[in-house]
């Protein structure tokens, strides 16, 4: 599992001001900490950055590439800012992201081609979020077709099927898992990624990691290539690095229909079992899902 650290983010209460004030210290520190935590890519999320986004992205890329040798993921919806970042980047780079919207896809693909970048293909179309697994498949075909036409091979495309919160619509949670079983056939060689923390949006903060980790295991089972994650969730890191086969095995078994006696499991395993039940749609989510 390739891990993209989500923590260098304009929404952060310390990094937001640092970005605006071009205060390199905290930004560098975050990139170093993420690198030390063991992530594979550092995501640079500067937000929509409507005003002066190009200058900001160029500054952040230069600041970060001086302190980490990790691949960088440039995260903004401002395509001018994206281009400014790509221009100064020396080394491998990922465009996060290019959506299917008519107003965005052509320019996004052009940038990926021009700067030899990988790109996240976000399955967000003119109609917004895909409603089910079929729309995800359809949008993937569209995206790959357009990207190939622009000269970008499947191997440089990371499809993001868009994870949505478990408390919003469980069918969307299941649709992403089902989509992963299909992606390899729809687009051989194509990579994938997902904004993992979306799954737990709205859940109590201290409980969110259970949902994030379990969902990662479920998606990884069907080939998820990478995930955008909290770089400092040590347990998630261990699972992703293959150090917790016991948890992975439990989740897989439950996905295959086994129903372990949850009350007899140790607390940690019971929590993963309960979370798997919720994410599979067998038990309805509530904020106290680990207690019932």
């Amino acid at each position, binding site marked *: 599992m390739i891990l993209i650290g989500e923590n260098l983010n304009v929404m952060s209460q310390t990094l937001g001001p640092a970005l605006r004030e071009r205060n390199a210290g905290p930004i560098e520190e975050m990139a170093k900490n993420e690198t030390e935590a063991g992530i594979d890519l550092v995501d640079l999320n500067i937000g929509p950055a409507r005003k002066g986004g190009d200058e900001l992205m160029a500054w952040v890329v230069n600041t970060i590439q001086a302190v980490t040798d990790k691949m960088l993921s440039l995260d903004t919806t401002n395509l001018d800012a994206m281009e400014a970042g790509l221009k100064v980047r020396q080394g491998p780079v990922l465009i996060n992201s290019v959506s299917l919207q008519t107003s965005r896809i052509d320019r996004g693909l052009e940038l990926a081609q021009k700067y030899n970048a990988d790109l996240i293909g976000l399955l967000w179309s003119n109609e917004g979020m895909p409603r089910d697994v079929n729309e995800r498949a359809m949008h993937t075909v569209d995206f790959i077709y357009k990207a190939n036409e622009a000269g970008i091979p499947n191997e440089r495309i990371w499809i993001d099927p868009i994870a949505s919160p478990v408390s919003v619509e469980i069918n969307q949670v299941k649709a992403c898992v089902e989509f992963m079983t299909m992606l390899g056939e729809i687009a051989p060689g194509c990579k994938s990624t997902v904004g993992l923390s979306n799954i737990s949006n709205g859940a109590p903060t201290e409980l969110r990691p259970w949902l994030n980790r379990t969902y990662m295991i479920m998606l990884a089972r069907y080939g998820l290539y990478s995930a955008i994650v909290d770089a400092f969730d040590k347990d998630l890191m261990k699972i992703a690095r293959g150090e917790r086969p016991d948890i992975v095995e439990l989740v897989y078994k439950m996905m295959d229909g086994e129903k372990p006696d949850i009350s007899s499991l140790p607390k940690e395993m019971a929590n993963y079992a309960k979370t798997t039940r919720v994410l599979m749609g067998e038990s309805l989510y*509530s904020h106290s899902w680990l207690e019932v």
Partner: protein
Amino acid sequence: MAFEIPKTAYSGKIREMALGKGDKAVTVGGETAYPFYLFEGEMPNLPKIAMEVYDMPPEEWPEAAMEPFTGVTDDPVAWAQKCIKDYGAEMICLQLLSTDPNGLDRPADEAAQVVKKVADAIDVPLIVWGTANHDKDTDVLRAVAEIVQDKSLILGPLEEGDYKKIGAAAIGYKHTVVASTPIDINLAKQLNILLGNLGVPDNLLAIDPTVSCIGYGIEYCYSVMERMRMAALTQQDDKLQFPIICNIAKEAWKTKEAKISEAEDPKMGDAKKRGILLEAMSAIVLLLAGGDVLIMRHPEAIKLVREMIADLTAK
């Protein structure tokens, strides 16, 4: 090969719950299949209708809604008795509108005395409904729970912001509580869990999913209630296996469509018929989604709904 009608695999059951006390107590819940799916399971207790009574004369009600209650709207006791005697109400819901802090702001003790008078004057189960103001409902419903302690009332709404104190009082005096959440199945389940943790017994808990009228988002209510029943009946979700109470009357009669007179907008047609049908049809939609108790207003709307229940359950 003969065609076989597919059948839903049910694994759960809605809890049966007694409301009120004595000869006129009613039982709701107990379903083992989706609403009115009598070809798949049982509905041992038909849905019940509680008639609304207000603790102050209503303002801004359309004429059609006032007319059946002429002469009693300034006396909740007489109003409740009229509902039972003239319109055959099997339950009463006393809406404590006068306690609204943005309105008359009647003190809790006074309001509780009114509830006591009504409770003493009737023998059918009594739902007592606050104004959904957390601080005020806490004061009012706790006072009601204590002052009317031996009547097995049904108290609501209990929300995340006030469930603890009201819930504790209800537990102490063995009243039923109604857990109310804003059209969200996950939050509904969560509040039921919290009330269970507080100590509310399973047989004294009902759900108010928050409902609205046709034309005002009833689809969302339908969908949430439907999903509650799916979780309760097919996924053995014991935190959702509770009867559902729908407070629909005030939603229907406050709409422009129920209020506007024919003179103001002739193409809207007869105002009385319109209001009655809006209330009745909204109520039927909620019944089909899983409502066990409907809080309703107009006797003719109630008659229509009763007929529909009889038709849907005819052998």
